[in-house]
């Protein structure tokens, strides 16, 4: 049992992406029912021992991550401080995160500007993915967010995001994402 704990820990540590319970079960050749309590116990242990990193649940899996309080110190390690996102990029991510699947023209209608360049950057960074083609004239590509998007912001899944409602201080009537009637003004 203790050996399994050690193995699970090593798998999570050595993987470059978060590992799900399913994946851990396959890798360790043990039933999920056995693995789940071990993972939960590990999570508690790291927090309780105030280690420099903790076992985070992110993007449908588990991954060791440094504790957020140390951010100002750890930033000294990273060479390129330019890994910040432009407002245009964050706006585009915001729209796609909440409206996925979203087409480029929907995004551009909402933002009021051409977004091809920003979208390409986000696609290159694997934060977006193509979900297929929309069943409408012209069959435009549909975009959604990726696993890396969840990893970037430390989200377990998309339901971890606050609802749009929580952002609508201006108009309580606008609770849900409205369907977009007009096709973009071009």
């Amino acid at each position: 049992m203790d050996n399994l704990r050690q193995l699970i820990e090593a798998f999570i540590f050595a993987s470059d992406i978060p590992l799900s319970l399913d994946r851990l079960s396959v890798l360790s050749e043990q039933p999920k029912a056995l693995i789940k309590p071990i993972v939960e116990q590990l999570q508690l242990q790291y927090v309780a021992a105030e280690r420099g990193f903790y076992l985070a649940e992110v993007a449908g899996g588990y991954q060791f991550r440094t504790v957020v309080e140390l951010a100002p110190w750890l930033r000294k390690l990273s060479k390129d401080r330019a890994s910040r996102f432009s407002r245009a990029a964050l706006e585009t991510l915001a729209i796609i995160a909440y409206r996925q699947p979203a087409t480029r023209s929907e995004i551009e209608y909402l933002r009021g500007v051409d977004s091809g360049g920003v979208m390409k950057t986000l696609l290159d960074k694997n934060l977006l993915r193509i979900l297929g083609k929309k069943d409408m004239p012209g069959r435009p590509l549909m975009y959604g967010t990726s696993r890396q998007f969840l990893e970037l912001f430390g989200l377990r899944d998309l339901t971890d995001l606050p609802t749009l409602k929580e952002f609508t201080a201006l108009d309580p009537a606008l609770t849900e994402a409205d369907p977009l009637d007009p096709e973009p003004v071009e």
Partner: protein
Amino acid sequence: MMGIQIRLEKFTGPLDLLLHLIKSQEMDIYDIRIVEITEQYLTIIEQMQQLDLDIAGEFLLMAATLIHIKSRMLLPISDEIIEEEEDPRAELVKRLLEYQRYKDVAEFFQQLPQLERDIFVGQFQLSDFIEGASEENEVAIGLYQLAAAFHQLLKDKPPETFHEVVRESLSVADYIDRITEKLLNKNRLSFREISPAKFSRSELIVTFIATLELVKMHIINIEQVNDFSEIWLSLTISPEQLSRISPQKDLLTYG
């Protein structure tokens, strides 16, 4: 002038600028003073004479929208159509509200702890420590990566007459002769050297096939240090052996 000093780069688009104006003038977003806001908007646009054209186009489009709304607001409202007539500002207000919402989400994202900015994962590389785990750099792939890879390949070498790869007029055997002749003079040649830029696509292909045949016949070696780096050809046999081997060429299935 109204003393508004605004740099357009600060704004991600016309909606962003408009929202800023509405807020700074303390207007009610549901009751925008359209004449005033249009005037201010146009003043700012005029100040930006040297804008990036693409961006300018979008800001100008919004200017046109504002002017249109303004003119509709000034028209006398006829009694018959008043029922269907919407507030000319309605569509704009809806877009502004919608945009405001995503602007807030963007700000929320900005505040969230971000990987590699605030939070870091371990940098352990399994393949560095465990034999047998080493693999080429893997890429996570989806449709975009697939299309991007194909696009990149085409960009590197656009293939027009792709399907008629080997023309009858070009004989692989001839090219094998040419390559070996060149290699007799120089021990080591790059693929680039045996396929000059003036070569047509078909010639390139035949040269390439000839090179592969030579490798298959164990006459030459090819090496490449990295993907996409120079391919080097070198003779593996002596010139004397070469003359004895040449009849093998007849076995080639190519013309």
